[in-house]
């Protein structure tokens, strides 16, 4: 059923950034060498089942452990294992399997007993397919199956939220993901998930600006009484679990914990498509669609790459080299900066964003009209020219100044805390219960306060620092949450993308 449009208080809508990825998809060629991290997405790091010199084929399971919370990991090419070693991967020592391609065929052997008529399969078989394909490791909670791929068993899931809102400055194209047949596949995927999690209600939240997709989805799902569709305003950070749960379920979120603790599983559209492909087509999850965005990319498109491809293979030909650039992973506000271009792609990558690293100074910068400048205030010409694309860069656009309590951060904050107040407490080293009472542990690190601050204060960093100091003093972040929620008692777990 189509529900009325919803939104939340605070937040900010990033509009019309230059270098949005076009809805075109190009398949990247099979790389000569892949490096596969043995920890991808949700789950523990696994031990390799292969060793140096073993021949492997694309889709072969190279790591699996049913005794810990995890999902299997596959080889993404046909080749020979060159090495198994530990490497620094996103500030964490991670075991990697390095495979040299010997046969660049694009064939991927199917998983056993997959079937287009999935309705005839037993629940166990469906769950097994989802688990074996590795798709169950996506997103912050993973997809629950009976194989310990998530932290809650599937029958305890009360709500399943599938979101495709695109509230970041750069987003993967919804039109592309849900193009023609994909839309039907996606809805099949949703039905499969409902079958796995029989006690759940499914909430489909889509970008309210994509009218045609919402219309089609509504038409196709009008018969399903367990599914609701919510058009949501694409206001950052609507796609965060902490914001989706209150907007859709009108329920408080246990900040700092995973949504699974209150029986909610949140998945994005690529994960659901992955479920369909695993169950109906038997594809192991070794390919990923990545949006290549930003003004420093020659041609903004989506690419389909094998897991383990190094960033060099993806970016070398695609970035503009005239001036220095900065490459960020998944999000311009919270994403990891990709300095080391030899790192491999894993299952959690969805956006690679390259913007100019602008160190040049600008003459009378603050007096410019600002045709291409984005701002939370309406003080630039861009606000009046909605057709002109806005150009992001990494310049600070101003000197750091003392806080003048302008209140922008408070107005923008999606979790209703007062960033500038907390920052003042932390900077003066007044770290005690007061700031905990003011909700310092509610911070979801969306980075919006640092973004909007006209005094260029790194509020997010200061708040994070305050949290750390508070924890060092023995203040327990759980005491803000535990008395008010009936949790399943599992501590928050964040994937590599959210470092």
């Amino acid at each position, binding site marked *: 059923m189509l529900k009325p449009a919803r939104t939340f208080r605070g937040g900010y809508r990033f509009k019309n950034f230059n270098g949005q990825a076009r809805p075109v998809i190009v398949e990247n060629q099979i790389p000569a060498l892949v490096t596969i991290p043995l920890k991808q997405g949700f789950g523990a790091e696994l031990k390799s089942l292969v060793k140096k010199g073993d021949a492997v084929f694309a889709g072969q399971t190279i790591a699996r452990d049913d005794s810990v919370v995890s999902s299997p990991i596959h080889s993404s090419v046909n080749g020979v294992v060159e090495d198994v070693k530990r490497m620094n991967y996103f500030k964490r020592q991670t075991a990697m399997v390095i495979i040299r391609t010997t046969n660049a065929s694009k064939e991927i052997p199917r998983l056993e007993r997959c079937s287009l008529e999935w309705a005839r399969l037993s629940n166990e078989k469906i769950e097994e397919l989802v688990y074996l394909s590795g798709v169950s490791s996506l997103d912050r909670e993973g997809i629950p199956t009976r194989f310990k791929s998530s932290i809650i068993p599937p029958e305890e899931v009360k709500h399943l939220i599938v979101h495709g809102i695109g509230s970041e400055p750069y987003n993967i194209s919804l039109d592309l993901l849900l193009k023609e047949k994909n839309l039907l596949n996606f809805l099949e995927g949703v039905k499969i998930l409902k079958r796995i999690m029989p006690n759940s209600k499914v909430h489909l939240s889509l970008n309210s600006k994509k009218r045609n997709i919402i219309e089609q989805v509504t038409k196709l799902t009008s018969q399903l009484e367990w599914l609701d569709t919510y058009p949501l305003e694409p206001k950052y950070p609507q796609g965060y679990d902490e914001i989706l749960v209150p907007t859709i379920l009108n329920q408080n979120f246990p900040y700092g914990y995973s949504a699974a603790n209150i029986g909610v599983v949140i998945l994005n559209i690529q994960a659901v498509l992955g479920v369909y492909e695993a169950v109906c087509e038997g594809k192991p999850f070794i390919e990923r669609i990545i949006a290549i965005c930003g003004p420093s990319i020659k041609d903004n498109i989506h690419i389909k790459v094998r897991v383990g491809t190094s960033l060099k293979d993806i970016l070398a030909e695609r970035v503009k080299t005239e001036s220095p650039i900065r490459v960020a992973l998944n999000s311009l506000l919270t994403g990891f900066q990709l300095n080391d271009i030899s790192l491999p792609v894993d299952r959690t990558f969805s956006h690679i964003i390259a913007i100019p690293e602008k160190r040049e100074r600008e003459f009378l910068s603050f007096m410019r009209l600002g045709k291409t400048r984005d701002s939370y205030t309406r003080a630039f010409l861009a606000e009046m020219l909605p057709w002109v694309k806005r150009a992001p860069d*990494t310049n600070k656009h101003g000197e750091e100044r003392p806080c003048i309590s302008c209140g922008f951060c408070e107005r923008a904050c999606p979790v209703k805390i007062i960033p500038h107040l907390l920052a003042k407490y932390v900077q003066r080293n007044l770290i005690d219960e007061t700031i905990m009472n003011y909700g310092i542990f509610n911070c979801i690190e969306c980075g919006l306060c640092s*973004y909007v601050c*006209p005094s260029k204060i790194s509020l997010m960093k200061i708040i994070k620092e305050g949290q750390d100091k508070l924890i060092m003093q023995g203040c327990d972040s759980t005491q803000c949450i535990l008395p008010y929620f009936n949790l399943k008692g599992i501590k928050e777990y964040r994937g590599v993308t959210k470092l």
Partner: protein
Amino acid sequence: MKIIKVILENMNKASQKNKALMIFKPVLNAMDEFFFGTDKVTSLPHIVDNMDIKRLMSLVIIALMPVTIASVYFWGLRVFLVIMVSYAFGGLIEVCFAVFRKKEIHEGFLVTGLIFPLILPPGVPLWVVAIGVMFGVIFGKEAFGGTGRNIFNPAIVGRVFLTIAFPNIMTMNWQMPFNKGLGGFIHFQNSVDAITTATPLALFKNQGIITSYSNLMLGQSAGCIGETFRVGIIAGGLFLIAMRIVDWRLPLAYLATVVIFPYLGNHLIHTQFALGGFQLLSGGLLLGAFFMATDPVTSPFTKPGRWIAGFLLGFLTVLIRGLSGYMEGVMFSILLVNAFTPLIDTMVLKARYKKK
């Protein structure tokens, strides 16, 4: 652009050679930053808003432009001189403190330096302007630790000081504005001091005369330099609200209280309390409500706090205007409510984050 760069470089070199000139480093840095912006880059988030304090302050100055230009028309070219004196002496204090503290020079003064002359009577002697602005910046701002830490609005502090120290100059010196032809654009100042008159508020208080609303709106009444052209003040205020630089809650609460509350007072003592419409358009109310009460540093940052402050301001303004001997209700009420700001915020926070 290149010329400025060369000049700055030369000055930098000179200051490096001569130790005595090193103390002017903050001034050079401020100029350098002013002209050429920053070369620093972000860490996380990777992008930040294009808005900075310089632009924020320049927008407030742009919003004050209609009033400033109109005030030159009404009171003559001498207004420029008053503004220049205010900038020069206020800036001097600012620079001294920056040099003394070895900190950068902040932009906040750009607004104070322009607002301060706008709330002085047109015939004010220049030495009084200099004293007022210096007092305001030292005791209103620097004594508390500079930008962002002050409790009181520096312009108001300077103005209150002058009102109390030089009551004759500050409350008697009213003129009628130019209203014909090019007016003040071609005159230095209003010809003679002989045309002394009273402000609309004084006229009401002493003789019960109510100046017509159209005269009040278009600036055809006596008053401070920048407070009489009320169409321009409203336009500037709405501009800032539309730009999201000023929050609409406080001015709305303030003005609404001033309009509604006098009706009650008017019922009781109608010789003392003028009706709401007149209260709204007389004195420095509009300038105060849009440009001074909303100063982010000295007004509450919580939203309920802004409503409370607005209401308090309105209440105090009407009371002071109606029952005290002073006409400067707006000025005193802003000063008093500034003192209450931390208390209001603390109370709001206490209520909001009550232990469950």
